[in-house]
């Protein structure tokens, strides 16, 4: 269906989940106009997260009208992170733009995000000026305050699905579950430069959204897992050890107190229900500690696959005028087109 020409420079991935615009045709045309404003060649990839017959019908109508894009249909609802990953596998562009399935920003501002990639590796949209009532504002401030406190980031709109990034970013990040929300934080952790780009909020996004308690719960759990992954991936015992030692300590103090009473005041242990609590705490502390050791064992046995660091580039000049003769001893490096060998340098943006 698609002509197999040179890969486009921008790949646009639109994950379509439960929350989506009623008319995807209009949304697509708006997005296309916004992307076209960058002046770069582009491709669109729609990822249907689970069976979405309505959305699929609309997209197929567009295809019949002669539009060109790819549709990926996931067999069941895997979540937005999985949808993005699936879309990325088919994407050929050096720049990846993700767009939400409902208008969040004015499509004309997509250009600004792509332009921001000249100085950053990831550009995420930041809806400003932002509409919403006081409750919304407070909720957002609390969530982002917590996230920024925990991760040390400085972000203001994690809920915005408009992101532009270099291909390399998605190649290195391993997204799963609901982690798409924390993509900029994960990218930062890998050493990518992340910038927030203010974009005008779309008129259709201005009505507030009702969050159910369950969603708050999910956000908090996601936050916790991100926090754990960021701080303790390589040192589980630091986390579990702290927790276990504290619990064990409280239990030990209680036991000591009971023993003290028993020996000095002949208060029989048999009449002390606190003994149960002390035993429980003691034992719990040991269990948590053992979990930490188990974690360490997992890390140790898989340490070779887990790399702590990201190398930006390796600089070496094999042809440099050497103090020694490098005759046959020269390193058989891959044939370098330029005398300067640079590996894994960030791909130049072609927009």
């Amino acid at each position, binding site marked *: 269906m698609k002509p197999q020409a040179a890969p486009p420079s921008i790949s646009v991935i639109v994950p379509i989940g439960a929350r989506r615009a009623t008319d995807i045709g209009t949304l697509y045309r708006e997005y296309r106009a916004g992307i076209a404003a960058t002046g770069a060649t582009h491709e669109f990839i729609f990822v249907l997260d689970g069976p979405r017959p309505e959305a699929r019908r609309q997209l197929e109508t567009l295809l019949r009208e002669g539009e060109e894009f790819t549709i990926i249909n996931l067999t069941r609802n895997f979540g937005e992170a999985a949808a993005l990953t699936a879309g990325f596998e088919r994407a050929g562009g050096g720049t990846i733009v993700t767009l939400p399935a409902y208008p969040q920003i004015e499509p004309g501002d997509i250009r600004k995000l792509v332009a921001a990639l000249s100085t950053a590796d990831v550009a995420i949209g930041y809806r400003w000026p932002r509409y919403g009532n006081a409750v919304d504002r407070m909720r957002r401030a609390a969530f982002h305050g917590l996230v920024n406190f925990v991760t040390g980031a400085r972000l203001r709109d994690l809920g915005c699905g408009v992101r532009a990034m270099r291909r390399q970013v998605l190649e290195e990040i391993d997204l799963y579950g609901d982690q798409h929300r924390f993509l900029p934080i994960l990218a930062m952790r890998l050493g990518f430069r992340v910038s927030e780009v203010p974009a005008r909020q779309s008129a259709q996004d201005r009505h507030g959204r009702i969050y159910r308690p369950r969603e708050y719960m999910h956000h908090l759990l996601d936050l916790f897992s991100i926090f754990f992954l960021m701080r303790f991936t390589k*040192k589980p*015992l630091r986390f579990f050890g702290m927790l276990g030692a504290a619990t064990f300590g409280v239990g030990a103090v209680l036991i000591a107190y009971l023993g003290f009473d028993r020996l000095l005041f002949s208060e029989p242990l048999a009449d002390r229900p606190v003994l149960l609590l002390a035993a429980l705490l003691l034992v719990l502390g040991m269990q948590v500690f053992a979990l930490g050791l188990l974690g360490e*064992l997992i890390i140790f046995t898989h340490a*070779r696959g887990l790399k*702590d660091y990201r190398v930006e580039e*390796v*600089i070496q000049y094999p042809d440099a005028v050497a*103090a020694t003769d490098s005759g046959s001893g020269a390193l058989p490096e891959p044939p370098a087109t330029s005398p300067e060998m640079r590996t894994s340098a960030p791909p130049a943006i072609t927009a």
Partner: protein
Amino acid sequence: MSGAKSTTHDGNIDAAQRTASAVGPALSVIVPLYNEQESVGPLYAAIVQALAGLDRSFEMVFVDDGSKDDTVAVASGLARRDPRLRIVKFRRNYGQTAAMAAGIEHANGEVLITMDGDLQNDPADIPLLLEQIDAGFDVVVGWRHNRQDKLITRKIPSRIANWLIGKVTGVPIKDNGCSLKAFRAALIKRIPLYSEMHRFIPAMASIAGPRLAQIRVRHHARRFGESKYGLSRIYKVLLDLMVIKTIASFASRPLRWFALLSLPLFALAFFAFGQTVVDVLLMGEDAFSLPIAGSGVIFLGSGLILLCSGALAELIYARGDVRDREFLRLTQTILAGGRNPGADRTL
């Protein structure tokens, strides 16, 4: 000018790197750098000068740990004139262990030397380390005698830490904090380095049971910049130490470790139940004590769960890809192999 071309065949050393180059230099000098723009030049000159007199090929691997100053620019300027210098640039600051690990990964030499980038180690000591390697040792650790640092904040904590590390790991190293070390590449490339393990490289390496030498090295006072590592790491060191101890002694039989941990619990459960039975038999039903019997149940249950964790640990180890068996092979053949330990390092 070097006639002594090393011909070690690096077999299947970490495949990630440069599969093409089977022939590397005899020696790699690995230096992690973090904001050391003034030190890089003198350091480079000192290394080259120290090694020029030796009759072996060498390379230098400078790892830039996300410096904020001009370290990379200065180092690139040096690399432009010297093909033996390789610079590995991190995307951001990842810490000294990561820098060491990256340097080790990107080095092609048969013997790897690690040292600090702040000129406190003296490259002139490298030949001394090499002598020990040539004598057949697998790991040579420098020992900063006459250390030029502040007494209270640096020397005393480090002395306590060294004593503790020696006691716990059973590898009595006088100075774990000294970065000037030499390793056989085949050995160190297999040791997993992560977290803040750089302090414990010799202890980690001891899993493989290498022959370890310690020699005195010179130590200079800081010439440029600030010290980047202070104290306040005691808690981390303690936990890391515990991890190493556990891994070094029990990694291959985790069930035993967990069983050991659960033993006191079973003992406590036994006492609690014994007390309950004795009480009830001697003094009748009324003497039954819920707190004591309940504690017994808790201890028993917990002991059982610990045993289950041990079984889980066995499973993890069995499916993992790092075993101490493969470390053992590295040093095993050296005695049988005669003079050149590099030659029979076939896996």
